[in-house]
């Protein structure tokens, strides 16, 4: 109990409050800019947190992520340009409201729904993470190895249409994660005689390159000379009923919000699904259960509430696998995992024993971030809307240069900037060729832990290859891993037959390209 109170008091310290506030405000601002999302913002700002205490840093990044999730709705509602996939469902009803001059009302509904979903999800995280972590402590290295194998397989399907390419990306990520010092012999491995590789590839330059720099390379293709041309004009009506969401309007959607939150919690707690799935699933359910199905897509507040409550609920619930098992379920959490490691913590069930006070401080920061999101959104909404009109000519050079300096900041090394550029280049091709950079990054982050677990299994079992058969949970998880691979291959083959074009015609060069 003392730990809980001390942790919560830590989260109420002026520095912590200030950085959570800055994080949320920055997150909303960044999320509102089309093309910049939460994980990218976290990657860019992790170097800044080197100079903060662990609690302040995590609070800041959590606030950034929460803010960016809501911020994504701003461009979706005002421009029908969702900055992130999960905001797409919000635009279906948000943009029609903007066309009716009710953009502010749509954004306020998105804000209240986001806060509601986020708050419920945070409470669930607080209530169940610690008890589940206590159970997870009974897992040995064999179970951890099997669990990471399963997670890598599930995650291989994210961000690509092909699990085969996802697995290749995960394999490449694992390989990159193994560069550096080998854990058993403590000798350099895969360093190719480059001494800077001796301590391994740092997460920050790799993440900034893959997430931010490669994204900017792509955005510049699309937006050069165009961003800023599309203004959110005639957005806000001056009538009060067109600007504000009444209590009646909000509470008439309570069921939808609750359902959306529960869907978001369920989806977020499962590694690999992510916020877009929650958002679309919740929207679909809201439409099916509504008495006014025909009004969906024409500017219905219920549609916005369903989408936003679900995708915001994913933010906190996706931390459940991180806190309980030490496995990131999506990209934003993978970035947070990196931040935990940078600040000397190994995410997983042991965190509740080794860093109990800090964990409760983080819980406090999560709740505070939700409150700040409501306050900042309530009073600053109109100002954040201006972010969607920042011209590309000004915005993108700033982001490119921030990527470069962010990569430099970690070790004050231009070598890391080179690494960042290399991974930006690789990331550009990965995206263009449909290889999952999410699978790569999660493979990169989990590789050392995966190898450590394997080494422990081999050493404990004294090279007994039947070790896994003696551990039913590990065996079950490995069986599940093979089942997931087989099922996905089968589904891909079956799905491929539905929509067919002649490969011979394609190979003959029917479509002229580069």
């Amino acid at each position: 109990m003392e730990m809980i109170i001390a942790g919560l008091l830590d989260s109420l310290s002026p520095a912590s409050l200030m950085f959570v506030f800055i994080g949320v405000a920055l997150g909303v601002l960044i999320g509102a800019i089309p093309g910049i999302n939460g994980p990218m913002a976290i990657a860019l700002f992790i170097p800044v947190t080197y100079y903060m205490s662990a609690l302040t840093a995590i609070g800041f990044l959590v606030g950034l992520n929460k803010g960016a999730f809501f911020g994504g709705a701003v461009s979706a509602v005002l421009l029908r340009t969702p900055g992130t996939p999960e905001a797409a469902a919000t635009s279906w009803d948000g943009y029609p409201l903007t066309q009716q001059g009710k953009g502010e009302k749509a954004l306020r509904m998105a804000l209240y729904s986001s806060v509601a979903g986020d708050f419920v999800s945070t409470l669930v995280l607080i209530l169940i993470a610690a008890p589940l972590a206590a159970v997870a402590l009974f897992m040995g290295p064999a179970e951890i190895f099997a669990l990471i194998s399963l997670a890598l397989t599930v995650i291989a399907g994210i961000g690509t249409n092909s699990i085969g390419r996802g697995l290749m990306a995960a394999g490449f990520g694992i390989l990159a994660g193994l560069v550096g010092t080998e854990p058993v012999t403590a000798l350099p491995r895969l360093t190719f005689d480059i001494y800077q590789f001796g301590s391994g590839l740092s997460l920050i330059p790799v993440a900034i390159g893959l997430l931010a720099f490669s994204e900017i390379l792509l955005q510049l293709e699309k937006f050069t000379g165009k961003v800023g041309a599309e203004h959110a004009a005639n957005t806000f009506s001056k009538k009060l009923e067109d600007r504000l969401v009444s209590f009646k309007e909000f509470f008439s959607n309570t069921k939808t919000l609750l359902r959306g939150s529960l869907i978001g919690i369920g989806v977020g707690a499962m590694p690999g699904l992510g916020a877009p799935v929650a958002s679309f699933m919740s929207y679909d359910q809201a439409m099916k259960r509504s008495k006014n199905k025909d009004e969906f897509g024409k500017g219905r507040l219920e549609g916005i509430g369903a989408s936003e409550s679900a995708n915001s609920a994913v933010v906190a619930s996706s931390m459940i696998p991180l806190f309980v098992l030490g496995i990131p379920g999506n990209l934003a959490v993978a970035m947070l995992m990196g931040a935990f490691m940078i600040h000397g913590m190994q995410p997983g069930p042991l965190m509740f024993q080794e860093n109990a006070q800090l964990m409760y401080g983080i819980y406090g920061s999560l709740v505070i971030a939700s409150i700040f999101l409501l306050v900042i959104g309530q009073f600053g909404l109109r100002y954040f809307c201006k972010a969607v009109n920042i011209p590309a000519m000004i915005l993108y050079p700033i982001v490119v240069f921030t990527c470069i300096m962010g990569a430099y900041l970690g070790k004050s090394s231009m070598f890391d900037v080179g690494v960042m550029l290399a991974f930006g280049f690789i990331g550009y091709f990965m995206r263009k060729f449909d290889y999952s950079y999410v699978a790569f990054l999660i493979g990169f982050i989990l590789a050392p832990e995966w190898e450590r677990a394997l080494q422990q299994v081999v050493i404990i079992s004294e090279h007994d290859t039947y070790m896994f058969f003696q551990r039913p949970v590990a065996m079950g998880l490995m069986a599940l891993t093979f089942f997931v691979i087989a099922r996905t291959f089968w589904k891909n083959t079956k799905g491929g037959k539905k929509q067919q074009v002649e490969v011979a015609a394609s190979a003959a060069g029917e479509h002229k390209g580069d």
Partner: protein
Amino acid sequence: MTRIKRDLIAYLVIAGFSILMLTWGIPTYTPAHPGYGASPALVPNVAVGIMLFMACLSILRICMAILRNESISAEESEFPEDMKEEAGFTQVGRVKLFHLASIMVPSVLLVVAIEYVAYIFVSFIFLMVLQYAIGCRKCLQSVVVSVALTAVLYIVMRYGFGVPVPGPQLF
């Protein structure tokens, strides 16, 4: 070049890289097995093995489809911009090499030049070039953005974080 052809080339490159790593990279740059625990080469071999296996499987699948004149889903065989329906959120598309070079070349030059020339000069020139590359032709705007950004980051790094900016220190 069609997407199928491009993918085939990519799989061949991945397979080639994997074979190179398995036969030269991993054996040469991995310490010897100390006699206890798993071999230090085991996990790298498994990771590269997965890449090689999946690449070979994909090559085989495409070759079989071509030989049997079978069909492959439009999602896999066409570029999204060629498809009639919306491409959704996928960023799959044709590589625009000139665009890529216009950003990457100045960035690489910045990394090299900053070690020899002071941060302030190199950053200013880099930002000017970058803005020109992305289509900005407003001279005053370019200068203002370049000067402001260079100065802000200098102040933040030097006085905010206490980190020296890269390259020779002028002041």
